[in-house]
């Protein structure tokens, strides 16, 4: 018997549980660490899908580099205490939100059960990828040929993100805003 469905539900369930914790935790550091767990679970799911490179990159880049930076920043900024009191949200709102989630979940479960998932295998089956020299090689070839446009655009997007972060973070609050 194939064991991967068990692992899939394990990883997916834990990913969802910890995602909820990211939102619910009051302390930013705790939220950040929950997010690390979520990223590890994602890596597990990618590995189950035979996407080993993505799984490794997910752990190295997201769980490793990015999250470490996050945690550092949170700790250095000493932002461990919630900066504002959210108060208790309206009861009707919370009930409504949960109900909406349940309805959406039901809709998706219904949709995927009703529709026969006869997805024909695409151009890249596991056997073909092995024949072509493995995951990493195939991904690099595709990324720099067929998917070159999204790849390059992502760099532009990151550049815009950096400029945006500078625009928000550079100025000192309280100091009179003058010309840069």
């Amino acid at each position, binding site marked *: 018997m194939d064991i991967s469905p068990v692992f899939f539900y394990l990883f997916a369930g834990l990913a969802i549980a910890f995602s909820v914790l990211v939102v619910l935790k009051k302390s930013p550091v705790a939220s950040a660490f929950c997010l690390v767990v979520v990223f590890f679970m994602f890596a597990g799911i990618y590995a189950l899908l035979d996407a080993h490179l993505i799984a490794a990159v997910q752990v190295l880049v997201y769980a490793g580099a990015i999250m470490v930076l996050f945690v550092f920043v949170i700790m250095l900024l000493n932002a461990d205490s919630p900066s504002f009191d959210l108060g208790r949200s309206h009861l009707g709102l919370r009930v409504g939100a949960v109900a909406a989630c349940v309805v959406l979940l039901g809709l998706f479960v219904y949709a995927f059960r009703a529709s026969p998932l006869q997805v024909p295998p695409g151009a890249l089956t596991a056997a073909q990828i092995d024949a*072509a020299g493995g995951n990493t090689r195939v991904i690099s*070839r595709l990324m720099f040929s*067929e998917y070159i446009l999204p790849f390059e655009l992502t760099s*532009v997007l990151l550049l815009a993100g950096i400029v945006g972060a500078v625009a928000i973070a550079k100025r000192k609050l309280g100091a009179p805003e003058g010309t840069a």
Partner: protein
Amino acid sequence: MDASTTIRADLLTLTSEQAMMLSPYLWVFGGTVLAMILSVTRAIQPRLPVFIVSVLTALVGMVVSLGLFAADRVMLFNNMMVGDSYANFFNVVFLASAALTMLASFEYLDQERLQYGEYYLLVLFAALGMMLMASALDLIVIFIALELMSLSVYVLVGFRRADRRSNEAAMKYFILGAAASAILLYGTALLYGATQSTNIRDIQAFVQSQSGGVSIMFTLGAWLVIVGFLFKIASVPFHMWMPDVYEGAPTPITGFMTTGLKAAAFATFVRIFISTGYGDGLPAAIQSHMHDIIVVCAVLTMVIGNAVALTQTNLKRMLAYSSIAHTGYILVGMIAGQGSEQGYAPVVLYLVAYAVMNMGAFAVLAILAARADQGLNLRDFSGLSSRQPWLAFAMSVFLLSMAGIPPTAGFAAKYLLFYSAVQAHEIGLVVISVLCSAISVYYYLRVLVHMYMHEPEEGAAPLRPVSVWAAAVVASMVVLTVQIGTLPAGMLAAAKRAVMSL
């Protein structure tokens, strides 16, 4: 065939036509990088150079796109992007809107002490994202371009960092926008699962080949993608973010959002809409399904937008609700597109006309706004005709245009739009649209009454001197509004050509 072992040579080179078609994008990106370098150079005072480089980047890019308007369609990057008249038409709109926004902002930023180079960089980045959105043929590229645009605009909305409303608007917009992006992305994933492709053309071919109806997975994916776009165009019931964001954003950015952002979202929506749900050769079931979704949204959007706008006293907020109402009219045009002889050209014309009059109106508001965007309430406009006769006149032209009164752009655009809806036998929709339009006259004219028939308030704050740049923006928009209103044929022909190239 085997993409995993060999690389097609044509993917690694650009032909001269392709390089030509890409030149506006490369130009805008290059200009942005140059402006970025200038803004961090310590040797010079970067205020004016960054402004001039950014505006020139947008203007020259606009001219280049205009020159490419008549060129034949060129497929780019493995069919992920296309350079056609439609894309170039909208490139002109986006870059013009970016340039005018920057011109209208210069004095405003000085007054608000927000004169930072990043402002212009982000406007250019947003414009680049819009250009890519309108020319993308692949859902992945559309998503990245959408994020490029949205990310820049999130920051621009929160640019007045010391202001609570601006922060709140940016935060709301960011969280809701991120949720909408996630929905769009999930829909894309489902569509990929159902059709084996993220390319719009391939998805269209897939749907055309499905005679027995599509799977539920496809329907769900399409729904989610549509919801993502309905959020971006702020159609009811996904409009809740808009009034707060419009009110909190710096005034020129609000203008940029109503013109560039809206046109970009609609341009992409129309492109996807035609191929995934409304194009030729698609099963009637899908068409009627899409038809029903859009009709419900259009009616709700028009009625709620206009009804709530009636009660607003802050002009920015009123224009935000009016913007929602206009979204409804454009949706009517989208429904009618298939069944009328003009096709989707009235939609495109309406987007241009709407962009022109809003750009002008928000440029006027940016001039009139007191410190920290105060003083944009209805009573602050009392007696404007005696304090600033020319601004009052310009504002009246824009408001009359929004209300759809001849001889302005709004009238011509609305007339063509509703006429195409009549041709498509959507009589019920037309009746509702015209009634809503009639309601809207009340709140537009109320501003006119305040400007021309009321005395100025006692002790009203003195108005800022009007900068040359902002005055040029307002004047050119007045001319364009009247020009499109009296001689719409030229613009309509261009719009038609753009739509034909889809």
